[in-house]
């Protein structure tokens, strides 16, 4: 327990250091970081809508980070959360458009939830299957799969899924009946956020309390010993990737039915890569993914707000820089923690020996 608190302390420290370094960078842009951040922060906190945006942005990130964190526990690298998310989105928009006038909202949303998860799981299954069957490198396969799905989506947007006007590469907007209900009035925060949190908790339970989760972790930590324990690592590879893909797929539901209400080109192009960083920030812990995603959601909103501050001309992309620096600081903090703890133990030893 003590070590877990320790990790948290290091993480928070790293995030703060990352923000300080970022602030120094702002100095180079000839703006006063304290002033700018203060203003942006004020705008976020004082406005319910902006505050809600933090959670809106965090929602899909929770899913994509879970998608990476899940396979991470099986010592696999799922770089393809973006593709799995897009596949989920395609299924979500197609099902919504098809069924919105036929079935009631509640049932529709459940169907879309299952469908988008299945879409993502299908992509994940392909990657896991390639790994299990042909010993393909899952890192590369999953990474490239994103491009496949992205192009497949473009094809659909130009053909069967294209809007009735047939003008832009996008689908028709879905009906209000197919929207995920808003849970906080005056904001865009929708039911998807609650679903995301529930799934994160569910993933934690699955990994830590069930036999399947045990098998996945055992394969991840020592596949040879797991194999001799009668666990088939290849089966676990496929299952983990399917579950991970399914998680990323559900982000399709929250983004299509919760936020965008249609599918268009370059849809949320970077939530997959952010997911990886967030999962690493959370050290693969599903619960940690919730908080790390909220942090990144916040940074995201902060960036947009800063960009809109009048007369300062701060590029909104500054926030990507900040996010990168924060992430780097967290990763460095892992190394620092190990060194410090080793030193401490050695010192204790010397005292005990003397």
């Amino acid at each position, binding site marked *: 327990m003590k070590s877990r608190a320790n990790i948290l302390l290091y993480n928070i420290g790293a995030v703060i250091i990352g923000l300080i370094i970022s602030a120094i960078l702002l100095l180079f842009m000839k703006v006063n970081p304290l002033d700018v951040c203060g203003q942006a922060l004020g705008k976020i906190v004082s406005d319910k809508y902006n505050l809600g945006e933090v959670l809106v942005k965090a929602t899909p990130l929770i899913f994509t980070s879970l998608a990476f964190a899940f396979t991470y526990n099986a010592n696999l690298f799922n770089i393809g959360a973006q593709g799995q998310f897009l596949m989920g989105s395609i299924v979500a928009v197609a099902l919504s458009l098809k069924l919105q006038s036929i079935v009631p909202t509640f049932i529709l949303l459940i169907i879309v939830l299952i469908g988008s998860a299945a879409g993502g799981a299908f992509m994940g299954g392909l990657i896991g299957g390639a790994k299990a069957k042909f010993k393909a490198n899952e890192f590369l396969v999953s990474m490239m799969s994103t491009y496949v799905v992205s192009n497949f989506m473009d094809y659909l947007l130009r053909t069967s899924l294209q809007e009735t006007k047939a003008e832009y590469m996008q689908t028709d907007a879905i009906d209000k009946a197919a929207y995920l209900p808003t849970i906080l009035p005056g904001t865009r925060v929708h039911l998807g956020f609650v679903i995301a949190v529930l799934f994160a908790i569910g993933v934690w339970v699955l990994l830590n309390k069930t036999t399947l989760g045990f098998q996945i972790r055992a394969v991840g930590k*020592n596949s040879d*010993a797991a194999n*001799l324990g009668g666990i088939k690592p290849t089966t676990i590879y496929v299952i983990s990737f399917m579950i991970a893909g399914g998680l990323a797929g559900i982000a399709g539901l929250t983004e299509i039915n919760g936020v965008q209400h249609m599918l268009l080109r370059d849809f949320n192009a970077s939530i997959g890569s952010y997911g990886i960083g967030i999962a690493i920030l959370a050290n693969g812990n599903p619960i940690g993914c919730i908080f790390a995603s909220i942090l990144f959601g916040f940074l995201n909103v902060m960036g947009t707000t800063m960009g809109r501050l009048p007369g300062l001309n701060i590029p909104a992309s500054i926030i990507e820089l900040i996010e990168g620096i924060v992430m780097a600081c967290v990763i460095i903090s892992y190394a620092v923690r190990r060194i410090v703890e080793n030193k401490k*133990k050695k010192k204790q030893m010397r005292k005990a020996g003397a």
Partner: protein
Amino acid sequence: MAVPAIDIQNVSKYFAKVIANKDVSLTVEEGEVVALLGENGAGKSTIMKILYGLYGKDEGKIFVRGEEVNIKNPADAMSRGIAMIQQHFSLVPTHTATENIILGNVHGHVNIKEHEKKLKEIALKYGFDVPVDVPVGQLAVGQQQKIEILKALYINTSILIMDEPTAVLTPQESDNLMQFIKDFTAKGNSIVFITHKMKEVMEVADKIVVMRNGVVVDTVKREDTDEQELAKLMIGEPIIPPARDESIDYMNNDVVLSIKDVSFGEKNAVDLLKDLNFDIHKGEIFGIAGVSGNGQDELCDVISGLKHATKGTIVLDGEDITKASIKKRNTMGIGYCPVDRYRDAMVMDMTLAENIFLKHWWDKEWSNKGFIRIKKLNEYTNELIKRHRVKANDYSDIARGLSGGNQQKVVLGREVDLGKKLLIFNQPTRGLDMGAVDRIHHVISEEKANGKAVLLISTELSEIFEMCDRIAVMHGGKMMGIYKNGDLTTEQIGLLMAGVHLEDEKEVAE
């Protein structure tokens, strides 16, 4: 008195988790053989690795020929005439002896022939018969070791450190090594050799430094001591081996495991197991002796189900399991302690309870609708820790934090409970301290008394002689014969291990 070749004064070394060495002092005179005796983990290798520059020391001083030195790396050590032969050889298997030896000592254009000639001269001087132009991967372990020694001689070493040099050798090869040690030191050179085998110590050592738990317990002259005294110094307490009842004839008991014409080999490669035939009966310990790497591991693999026999049948208690999955075999009552605990038996970053669950996850008794019955698991783990006297706090300890002996006790406890019919032990005591070895031997004896069939594979002849009812010797994937314990002398086993058939010996038929 002359200045000692090596003088180590009060050297200490701390690792994050253990005190590896504390105030270690020892001297090595010129022309002297010093044996560093102690159990595994006593700190013998550590102090020598410090001397060889592989580790830095935290406290103390080291003098080489009277000059205080701070050896930073092996190259530094070698330039002072110190060489060390590691327990695991550092040779490039695809290179010839010559290429291996000149590696790192030559630059630019290399005249291989010239080096070969020089090497042959050195080899001749010590009566070494090793081919210098064959890839070392093709040579026997004993010859590889000679190449390691040549490597040291080539750089004009005067102080040679050898870490457990006889661990991988047949008795005959060991004798040759002992002869070399005598020849080498007769020329005024010094040798430090690290071992836990008393016999060798008494044979060649001039001075014996006994270590225990990172400190030097005593330094004695060979002529002033005997094996009993050394054992006492080394272990600290007397060990009573479990008694073996030789009067029972197990051949009449039911057959538990039956191996018929079993062969195994990877595709397009030489068979690693060739036509093995043997039965193991209830309550019998069947031992397999042999130099490691002669098919023992593959035999374990085909019985445990990790690999499938390419020919022949394996029958457990009347049921053909030749093609059965690992899980199926586990549920049928096979317990297996593999040789590489770190790789195959434990998940080091999981808790002890989770490591126990590794062999129970399929069992409905241990899970409820897919959820692990954690309370039951934890209670069982605590009970197992107590029963096998594992030094651990409780079920939540991470496996990595335990010592090797205690890790092995956990594996052993798990496997003996799982293996209701057959237990396979592949070198169960390798690398463990005497206390743990003793505990493990007693557990194996208990399980035998409970009527389980036991397959015990070991490279330690003393262990084989102490524990087994029948002994088979493996060489090159083949059985060199199956004998009753007591029908073979150490020398005869040594010959069999080296692949020499005993023409006149009467084989005990199955």
